[in-house]
């Protein structure tokens, strides 16, 4: 049973305060959704959890199974069972996607980077299910990937890494309805396998597939609403602006 806990997190980037006291928890097998308008701090939260050194924790902490991650490097967090998917494509044309998969799987199982890894065959299979074309494997990571390809690739990596907590930053953006369905199915499988999932999204649509147990809405670096699937409905019907007005937030 894994638990990711974010406690009163305050984060600054280049001296500017972005997160102003965020607290939430994600447990094994549960799906938690984070919604909110652009610029509300969702990606900042995720990058901080991933351990990105650009994001400076001013106050509060992130804990995995009760232990602080404050001093853990990104690769150590990965080793402890965290997987954080990125929102926008990072292009690393030098590193082939197939090599990244192999390297990641080897790191996960405590082997050397370049060792052979039989699970690469599994990657091809899952890629097929996610609608990710085979030629992607021979291209550089993110190199010339469409938005949809990058999202599918991130979900593929999450599935292969078998994390205890998977965090996905807008896994649905840039996808058509079929892509969304495929990704939802994959994430459900991940949760059924025991992983806790935290995902951000702009749209209610993917949450119809996923049925999150908890939904948070973030605005200006704070979690302003918290509840169940009914919040998704409200966001969809009213939009953020009206919702925040009604709640007396903005």
């Amino acid at each position, binding site marked *: 049973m894994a638990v990711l806990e974010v406690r009163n997190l305050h984060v600054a980037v280049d001296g500017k305060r972005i997160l102003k006291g965020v607290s939430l928890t994600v447990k094994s097998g549960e799906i938690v959704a984070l919604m909110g308008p652009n610029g509300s701090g969702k990606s900042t939260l995720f990058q901080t959890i991933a351990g990105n050194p650009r994001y400076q924790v001013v106050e509060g902490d992130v804990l995995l199974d009760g232990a602080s991650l404050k001093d853990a490097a990104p690769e150590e*967090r*990965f080793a402890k069972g965290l997987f954080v998917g*990125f929102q926008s494509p990072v292009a690393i044309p030098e590193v082939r996607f197939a090599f990244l998969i192999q390297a*990641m799987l080897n790191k996960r199982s405590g082997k050397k980077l370049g060792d052979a890894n039989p699970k690469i065959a599994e990657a091809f299979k899952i890629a097929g299910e996610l609608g990710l074309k085979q030629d992607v494997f021979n291209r550089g990571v993110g190199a010339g990937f469409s938005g949809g390809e990058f999202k599918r690739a991130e979900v593929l990596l999450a599935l292969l890494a078998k994390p205890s907590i998977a965090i996905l930053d807008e896994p649905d953006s840039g996808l058509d309805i079929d892509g969304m369905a495929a990704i939802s199915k994959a994430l459900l499988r991940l949760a059924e396998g025991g992983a806790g999932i935290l995902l951000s999204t702009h749209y209610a649509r993917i949450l119809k597939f996923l049925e999150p147990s908890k939904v948070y809405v973030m605005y200006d670096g704070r979690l302003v609403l918290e509840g169940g699937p009914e919040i998704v409905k409200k966001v969809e019907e009213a939009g953020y602006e009206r919702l925040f007005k009604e709640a007396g937030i903005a």
Partner: protein
Amino acid sequence: MEKELADVRGMIIESERASELLGAAKPVPYAVELKGRITRDMIEEISKLKGEPDWMRRLRLRMLELFEKLPMPKWVRGVGEIDLETLVHYAKPQTQTARSWDELPKEIREYYEKLGLPEMEAKALLGLATQFDSEIVYFNFKRKLEEKGVVMLPMEEAVKKYPDLVKQYFMRVFPAEHKFAALHGALWSGGTFIYVPPGVRIEQPLETFFLIGGSMESQMEHSIVVADKGAQVHWIEGCSAPRLLKYSFHNGMVEGYAHEGADLKITTVQNWSRDIINFNNKRAVAEARAHVQWVEGSIGSKTTYTFPSTILKGEGASTEIYGITAANGGLWKENGAKVWHLAPDTKSRIVNKSISANGGTSVYRGMVYVAKGAKYARSHVQCDALVLDGDSANITIPHDQVFEETAVVTHEATASRISEEKLMYLRARGLTEDEAKASVVLGFVSDIVKDLPFEYAVVLQRVLELEFSKLGRVG
């Protein structure tokens, strides 16, 4: 690839860069050392010691005259550091050319063992010659090739045994067109002569390995590789040196000849220690429908000037010139290419990849010449630079001279860096910072490395990995 890479890793160099791997230079007994001013007497003495035929002695003396006449090239950096009069120009170690590793003096054998050459020979090579300072000290060549008429010999032996064959090529592919080429011609010593008869195709590579064992020396080996009509050969040259007290000067020459329809490959894995000033004179001729491939892996040395060049002489001849340059630390590394398109339907492709870090400068200096009448000649030059920090640089100096209207000559250049974003992404996938950097660097050169024989790909990757995985912070 990655699987095999891991498999043989154990057998290959486990250590650091060349200098760290080989440690500091150890004293080696010499039979002869000729030092000081480069005079007619010195040249005569070398020729006499080698027991050369008169034509070679006269060639040397002609080259000496040219050396004295030709001006010092102004564009060469670091040339001021070389004081030719203080260098030992001929250093013959106290040993005969051995046919087995056991026959070599211990000090010398240990160097080669540390480099993993005996294993490499057993696994991947059909012939191997190793040079220590001025002479080939070890030479072994598979009998089955001899039976097919293939010749592989230390150059001195070939000069005596096959004078008519050697004369056709010796400094004819690369004439003494500049001061250092002439100097080379006057002082050359060592190197190998390879001749592959018509139609003979050698599937596994032949190698010559060059080691400079002492400080304040010059090494000027001369190698010739000839693929006769329809023949195929792949020759590899490796270079290394231990850590030296001061510096040494390398001024070698490689002449290649691909006759009609032949396939000639020449691969260099240059990993000199940081005490070597490295000059090279490399040129090949491709006759009709012949193909010449150069791979220049320029990793070590303090200063390097190397420009593998091909003269596309016959119709339909083609060449590929691949370069990998690592300039890590305050080094100046020039790794360029030259191609002369002299006949119709000739093709050239130049791919140059450079990595600069910690104040290193890599330079691509290239020339594509298309003669009038070389109809429909095609050339593409691609230069990719990976510059790892703000103190480092890449300079790309392409130069075209196109006198044929139907020719198509194109260029493409990219520059990239290892950004914090790239590192963060890879670290979030479990790679440490060092592993992330090494993966980017190795990936950057992978499309060149994958063409190398497997064992060499491993060596080159390993060397690059060690060179660049311990970088300071990059940004």
